[in-house]
């Protein structure tokens, strides 16, 4: 390793790819190619980065440690390209680095595995990967990234307080590292944590709430009808939009009742109440009762129906703003990986509407896709992904089994 390589490596470690390129742009040796590749990745030139890293790996020949580093760097580029990371190759490279005592890159590779898991909505796996990372004595840049991944996990678990303290750790480490861009990332995440997370409707009044306030509601004794996640108490109605629609209207009106007429209009979109429609309404209310057994009861009144919670109030949570984008983001915010078909089903809108909303959210850096065609899934973007914004959920995660979200079609 010569002085130029070392200077370039330092420059990259401090987030200055141009200074690194000043040193190595004209070099065709293995180290030079590798560092050019990493610099290109930092500049967002991902296809070229991948090409340079592959050439570097070939040129390194028998140098196992260097090749393993190239594999890890290439995996990071793959993650950024939103393609599926070859996890076995990454694990094998991590083992090689461990054998060679390359602690820093072992930590980096494990954090990369955690970031990949988060992108796939596999929060448990991410948490496990994070637990395996040893960051004691690590350079502040790595500690900052580790704390950001941790914050990401806490958000998806619905733990706003822990997320905030992780972000504060991330911020402090970023300052020590002296990397402005990293500090900017953390600041953006902290700002989102303070942004409106949901609207709370209670006793006919509506207030805008931050994430921790929403969490307080969820942790309290009220029956929460969550229009962000399409969940009532512990019951997910994401695949039953009619039932959820009824629950929402009842929650909105509580403690008053809602007339049959209003329910038919709002939930079925029908102005004229024919006998068959009223019969259908009775059937759906029956289904809703069955779904919410043990959680809440629904009373029939003279005019219509009313929620009768078993104890406590009924509270309705709405996305912080109206609109398809907010509704899609709210659903995706549970941290799972969703297909467009299930999103459309949950929201009771067309797949085209969902796709349009997803494109907009993607442009804002709030959601990411992984996979292609039928296997394509959408999830929250995270700072721990490559060069993306840290997106916070509209409401904290109700622990939602990702296998529920897997549609059979894209």
């Amino acid at each position, binding site marked *: *390793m*010569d*002085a*130029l*390589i*070392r*200077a*370039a*490596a*330092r420059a*990259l*470690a401090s*987030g*200055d790819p*141009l*200074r690194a*390129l*000043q*040193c190595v*742009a*004209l070099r065709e040796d293995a*180290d030079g190619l*590798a*560092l050019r590749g*990493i*610099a*290109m*990745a*930092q*500049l*967002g*030139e991902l296809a*070229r980065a991948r090409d340079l890293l592959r050439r570097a790996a070939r040129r390194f020949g028998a140098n196992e440690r260097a090749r393993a*580093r*190239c594999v890890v*760097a290439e995996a*990071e580029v793959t993650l*950024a390209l939103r393609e599926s990371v070859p996890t076995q190759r990454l694990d094998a490279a991590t083992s090689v680095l461990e054998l060679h*005592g*390359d602690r*820093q*890159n072992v930590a*980096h590779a494990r954090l990369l595995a955690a970031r990949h898991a988060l992108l796939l909505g596999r929060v448990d796996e991410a948490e496990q990967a994070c637990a395996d990372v040893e960051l004691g*004595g*690590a*350079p*502040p840049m*790595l500690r900052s*990234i580790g704390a950001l991944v941790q914050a990401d996990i806490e958000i998806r678990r619905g733990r706003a307080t822990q997320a905030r303290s992780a972000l504060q750790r991330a911020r402090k480490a970023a300052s*020590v*590292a*002296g990397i*402005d*861009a*990293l500090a*900017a*990332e953390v600041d*953006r995440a902290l700002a989102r944590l303070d942004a409106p997370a949901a609207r709370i409707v209670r006793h006919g009044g509506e207030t805008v709430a931050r994430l921790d306030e929403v969490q307080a509601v969820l942790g309290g004794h009220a029956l929460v009808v969550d229009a962000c996640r399409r969940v009532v108490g512990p019951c997910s109605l994401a695949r039953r939009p009619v039932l959820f629609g009824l629950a929402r209207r009842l929650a909105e009106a509580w403690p008053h009742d809602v007339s049959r007429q209003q329910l038919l209009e709002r939930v079925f979109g029908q102005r004229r109440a024919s006998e068959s429609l009223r019969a259908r309404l009775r059937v759906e209310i029956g289904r809703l009762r069955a779904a919410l057994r043990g959680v809440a009861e629904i009373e029939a009144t003279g005019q219509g129906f009313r929620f009768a919670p078993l104890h406590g109030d009924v509270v309705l949570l709405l996305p912080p703003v109206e609109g398809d984008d907010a509704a899609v983001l709210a659903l995706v915010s549970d941290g799972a990986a969703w297909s467009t078909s299930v999103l459309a089903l949950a929201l009771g809108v067309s797949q085209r509407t969902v796709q349009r909303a997803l494109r907009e959210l993607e442009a804002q850096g709030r959601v990411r896709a992984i996979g292609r065609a039928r296997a394509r899934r959408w999830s929250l973007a995270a700072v721990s992904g490559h*060069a*993306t914004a840290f997106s916070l959920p509209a409401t904290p995660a109700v622990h939602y089994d990702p296998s529920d979200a897997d549609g059979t079609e894209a």
Partner: protein
Amino acid sequence: MELKREFGPLVTTGSVHGLAWDGERVWFASSEGLKALDPRTGEIMRTLAMAADAGTAFDGRHLYQIVEDRIVKIEPDTGEVVATIPAPGLGDDSGLTWAEGSLWVGQYGARKIVQIDPETGAVRRTIQSDRFVTGVSWADGELWHATGENDTSELRRVDPDTGEVLERHDAPAGAFISGLTTDGESFYAGGGSSRKILKVARRGER
């Protein structure tokens, strides 16, 4: 690192930076212009009169220099300006780098980077660097216990016949920030505000 030779002070004000080896000469930028140093004689072979506080790049054949709102392309053998393209206007203190077929203009502090076509100056991409992207570390673990302060390297002057150490300097790593290039055997480091260029041997490198 072993200090083999010192050149300078090479200018009377400002600093030296932006070093590039063109096969024969070490080019460097300074407020007194773009200059070429002959490392065999220690003489300044050429001075191109242009304000060159920052923004010098080399693509292996030609030099590029930001001059106000333009980037000039220079043939190092003759010192002639062979082309001029518009600069993206990020300010006088922008850095310039040639890499992977593009010129990259970066604001100091690396908040914004503009990628341009070296032939036309057309903007290919603008990067708002408020997002941090990590990368695999090539720094061989030396940063593991860094506290964020500058680590230091020792600079030694050694008697070439006896190998005796004549002088030692603690050179902060930042001393070489102002520029670094190689002729294939030795390194030339810009001494920043010392206005010198240091020729440094490869001894002690892994």
